[in-house]
């Protein structure tokens, strides 16, 4: 495959998108247990709030954040045709995503370590 920053951004966007869709369907199923009442719901939810899942949650956050910011970059290109600033925009997306993952992930890690 022809390797450029554009290609990396595209592959990451696709990959996070697919992961998020699969997660979404799973999420609808897990939350759907609410119709069976509080006991079943709390049981399901406890199963997905173990420390391992909390770490997976940070990965999920990274996927959402990257996909969202890269999507905003795409909207900017679609509407304002900013093709000459393309490298700057790619790096801006990577950096802002990394910062947000740290900003959101550190509280989750701390919370997980506290409640252990």
């Amino acid at each position, binding site marked *: 495959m022809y390797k450029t920053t554009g290609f990396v951004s595209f592959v990451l966007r696709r990959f996070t998108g697919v992961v998020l869709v699969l997660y*979404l369907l799973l999420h609808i199923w897990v939350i759907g247990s609410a119709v069976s009442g509080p006991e079943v*719901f709390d049981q399901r*939810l406890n199963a997905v709030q173990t420390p391992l899942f909390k770490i997976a949650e940070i990965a999920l956050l990274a996927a959402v954040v990257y996909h969202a910011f890269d999507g905003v970059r795409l*909207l900017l290109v679609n509407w304002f045709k900013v093709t000459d600033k393309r490298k700057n925009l790619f790096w801006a997306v990577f950096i802002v995503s990394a910062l947000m993952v740290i900003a959101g992930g550190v*509280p989750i890690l701390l919370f997980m370590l506290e409640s252990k």
Partner: protein
Amino acid sequence: MRIFQIQRVTAVALLVFMTIHMIVVHYPPFHIDFSIIVERMVNPVWKVVEILFLLSVLLHGLSGAYVVLTDYKQVSKFKKALALVVIVAGIVAFSWGTYTIISWRLPA
């Protein structure tokens, strides 16, 4: 063209809904259980917001999945079958999700 437009419109809607979702439901991190969620979800305004959120995210995600799959020549031969699968999955997911959202009530 329609898929492109759906993607862009739902993307903008999701920027709003996702921000709300992240702030209201997940920040700061806390242990989530039924009693915390039900307080919010019995409110009909929240029910409407969540249903709209669900609709946007399913449209965006499933149309995106369709585009990803039909991009590859090996798969694009089955375009019609894929479209059917995606539409059915969307209807099922939306129905089950909406039913769940409407069913939130304080336990007896």
